[in-house]
């Protein structure tokens, strides 16, 4: 028998293709896939949320027995906040079946939010900064507008289903970095939707404030305040504008000015003071 060892040609068991080329194509397609997926789910989430009757939201929040707000909030303050909600609600043409409940949280956080079932939460940190009723009414109308637009449910549905889809897509082993990169892409796509919700809520709130007070003086107070606070951001403005869940404060102030000019709202007018006991309520323990 004759034995020899011939060497086969190189490159039969490997693919001749520049690894970077394949990488770029894959990365691009993955980004497109994630974007399309999140956009579809957000749109579907929003669409379905608006189809679900509001009473299911109320039932859901009752089922969870979630504690919104502090345990023993100052009763007069909560009562007054709810009165304010009732005062601005007609301006938003709130349907009869949507009921708003305002909760107070005794914590120095500069925030207020709306969640499912028409529940609003106002933090002490935000309330202490309010100079007059008009400023607070704008915040209140903005949060009620979220409820009216069914944003809490849409955000929850779209957000949850996007998260689930992304986890399925990227959960197949490999590097955590690929997963986190695709998740970031998904988040960035998602915030485009939340920003649009914010803008729509601003528009509706401004109209409501105008119809209640006859002018929009003081409506931009919140954004002037937060804008001053967040001035020292490290990110360049264009990037922040693209990556934030909320529109930039400066942009919101300008948007309000533009809306007022377009709709012919009066920008000056008498500001309504807060109740005399307001500060005292906030300092109660």
């Amino acid at each position, binding site marked *: 028998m004759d*034995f020899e060892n*011939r060497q*086969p040609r190189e490159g*039969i*068991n490997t693919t001749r293709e520049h690894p970077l080329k394949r990488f770029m194509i894959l990365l691009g397609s993955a980004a497109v896939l994630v974007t399309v997926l999140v956009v579809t789910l957000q749109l579907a989430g929003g669409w379905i949320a608006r189809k679900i009757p509001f009473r299911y939201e109320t039932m859901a929040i009752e089922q969870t027995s979630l504690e919104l707000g502090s345990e023993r909030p100052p009763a007069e303050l909560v009562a007054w906040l709810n009165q304010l909600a009732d005062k601005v609600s007609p301006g938003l043409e709130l349907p009869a079946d949507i009921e708003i409940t305002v909760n107070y949280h005794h914590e120095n956080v500069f925030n207020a939010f709306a969640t499912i079932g028409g529940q609003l939460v106002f933090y002490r940190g935000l309330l202490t900064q309010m100079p007059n009723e008009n400023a607070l009414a704008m915040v209140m109308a903005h949060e009620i507008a979220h409820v009216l637009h069914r944003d809490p449910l849409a955000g929850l549905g779209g957000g949850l289903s996007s998260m689930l889809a992304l986890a*399925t897509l990227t959960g197949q082993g490999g590097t955590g970095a690929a997963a986190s990169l695709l998740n970031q892409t998904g988040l960035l796509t998602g915030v485009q939707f939340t920003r649009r919700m914010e803008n729509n809520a601003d528009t509706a709130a401004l109209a409501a404030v105008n119809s209640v007070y006859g002018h929009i003086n003081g409506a931009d107070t919140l954004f002037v305040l937060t804008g001053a606070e967040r001035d020292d951001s490290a990110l360049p403005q264009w990037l922040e504008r693209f990556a934030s869940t909320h529109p930039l404060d400066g942009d919101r102030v300008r948007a309000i000015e533009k809306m007022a000019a377009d709709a012919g709202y009066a920008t000056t007018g008498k500001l309504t003071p807060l109740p005399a006991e307001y500060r005292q309520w906030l300092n109660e323990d």
Partner: protein
Amino acid sequence: MLISNLEFLPGYKIKRHLGLVQGSSVRAKHVGRDLMATLKNIFGGELTAYTELLQDSREEATARLVEQATSIGANAVLNVRFSTSSIAAGAAEIFVYGTAVELEDD
């Protein structure tokens, strides 16, 4: 090209042994199929999509083995062995190797 897992082929004489040749192919299935497989894991049964994927992969590996054998002037590969291994999460490798030989009629 003759491929066999026998040592000797009846009716042929091995004129020359030309060494080892091999072919391999690494493939992954897409997320949709993975999802279906997860569902199938509840009920059991054949994962047709995976069967096809591995078969395609095996065909490619064999084609590469044949290409190697051709490149060194062999006309048969004997004593062929297949092996399958999972080399990364979600990626399976099919590997086939054997002795390249030059056969002539007995």
